């Protein structure tokens, strides 16, 4: 790691100091590595011989001292072939990256492992986060293991599992009458007033670094070739932006056998689809989504702080953005469980619903290599089943 760089104006910041976002243009900061140098000594095959987990990619992560890495087993999630769905949908190369096996049951573990580890390295004592649910649970767990005090703002209708896991890990949980955007406003004010480190999506530079490892794992799983299409649920967009960053890094490292990158598909819910609406207009930024509602709480993000990065990556990939109904999400969730034995989070199930739409539109060819992302376990969302 050499420095942090503003994704908007390119200004550089030290990676040895605490930074949130660019103080000049207020865009997210991204971590920059000396990949030209790394290319000379980093062999892509060495990583497969290391102990499993996200931190086997340590040279490409922002934490410098090994003792600061907070590890709970995150990363190296299974890439499952969906044989039965291939037959049903007439496809020949359909996969699902199952992030539910991460600690705390969701992909949020990756980002929070990286962010909390870096926070500890920088001497941070207290961390604060607004969350739609899973990020709060993950931050609470990693903060507990790091010995940091966690403060979590979440909507009052956040799944009970997220509230309980956060409290169990000793976090202070504040339930907000509103959406994650409301929680973000409150958490931001509290962070400024108290001087706590704000770990909001893209308002610090390191969660995206943890998430990008999903891209490295995919490339390694496919023998250093990338899939044709990645279908990814998009709330804050850290995973999508992170994987796109990973693909760029791997190109610079010379690790990819083919430099053709995947078409990125951003999946949102009908009741909250700011990226989809902006994509359809060809816009560079999203409008704030009024009256956001969906049972997929992770998709209930009226406007991401990194909306321009999400859109830029979709455009650059020649991808698309697609919205699905809650009914389609529930149906897809049931299908995934019954045909493949995967009890997916609604956000993950949304990718299957989107795939079905894309097949109908003939946007996807039957022989393309397609990867769906299940971002978490359905077990964390039992509230809406009982209500």
């Amino acid at each position: 790691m050499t420095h942090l760089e503003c994704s908007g104006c390119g200004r550089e910041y030290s990676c040895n100091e605490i930074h949130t976002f660019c103080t000049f243009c207020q865009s997210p900061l991204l971590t920059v590595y000396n990949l030209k140098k790394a290319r000379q000594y980093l062999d892509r095959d060495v990583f497969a011989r290391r102990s499993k987990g996200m931190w086997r990619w340590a040279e490409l992560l922002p934490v410098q001292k090994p003792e600061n890495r907070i590890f709970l087993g995150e990363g190296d999630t299974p890439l499952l072939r969906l044989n039965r769905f291939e037959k049903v949908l007439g496809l020949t190369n359909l996969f699902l990256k199952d992030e539910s096996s991460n600690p705390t049951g969701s992909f949020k573990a990756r980002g929070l492992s990286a962010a909390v580890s870096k926070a500890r390295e920088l001497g941070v004592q207290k961390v604060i986060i607004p969350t739609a649910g899973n990020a709060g649970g993950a931050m609470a767990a990693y903060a507990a293991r790091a010995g940091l005090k966690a403060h979590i703002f979440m909507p009052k209708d956040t799944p009970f599992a997220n509230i309980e896991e956060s409290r169990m890990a000793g976090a202070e949980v504040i339930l907000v009458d509103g959406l994650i955007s409301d929680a973000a406003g409150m958490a931001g004010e509290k962070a400024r007033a108290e001087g706590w480190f704000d770990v909001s999506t893209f308002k610090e530079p390191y969660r995206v670094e943890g998430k990008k490892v999903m891209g490295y794992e995919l490339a390694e799983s496919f023998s250093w070739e990338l899939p044709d299409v990645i279908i990814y649920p998009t709330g804050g967009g850290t995973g999508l932006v992170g994987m796109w960053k990973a693909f760029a890094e791997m190109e610079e490292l010379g690790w990819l056998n083919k430099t053709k990158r995947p078409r990125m598909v951003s999946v949102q819910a009908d009741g909250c689809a700011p990226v989809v609406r902006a994509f359809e207009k060809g816009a560079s930024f999203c409008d704030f989504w009024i009256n956001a509602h969906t049972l997929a709480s992770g998709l209930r993000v009226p406007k991401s702080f990194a909306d321009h990065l999400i859109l830029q990556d979709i455009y650059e990939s020649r991808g698309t953005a697609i919205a699905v109904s809650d009914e389609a999400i529930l149906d897809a969730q049931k299908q995934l469980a019954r045909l493949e034995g995967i009890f997916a989070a609604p956000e993950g199930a949304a990718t299957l619903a989107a795939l079905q739409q894309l097949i109908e539109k003939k946007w996807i060819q039957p022989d393309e290599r397609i990867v769906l992302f299940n971002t978490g376990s359905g077990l964390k969302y039992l509230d809406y089943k009982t209500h």
Partner: protein
Amino acid sequence: MGHNVLYIEDNPDNMTLVQRALETRGYKLLKAKNGLEGVKIAETEEVDLILLDINLPDIDGYEVAQRLRASEKVALKTTPIIAVTANALKGDAEKALNAGCDVYMSKPINIRELWARVEAFVPMP
């Protein structure tokens, strides 16, 4: 001549940031530290676009927007208003649009987005 943008905002840091950003692009910034001062400036000066913070120390941004739209100065019925707020409480965006604002932005204001939105309403020649 650059367009006049009125920014109604009580936070000096935000004011400085936006002033620097818009003046870089050739806009002239008129500044008001509270809602009543903002309404007065809008009614007496040539204003091409208004940036309106919602959380103001006297009257709130919704009230400001309603007063501007109801003003006897006819031009203010159509002057673009961009609402901005840090403490986005439930329904704030909808309330801002219902009060007469054209667009809602949440803080921290991304300057590139601000440029894009201001230029969409009042393009520089």
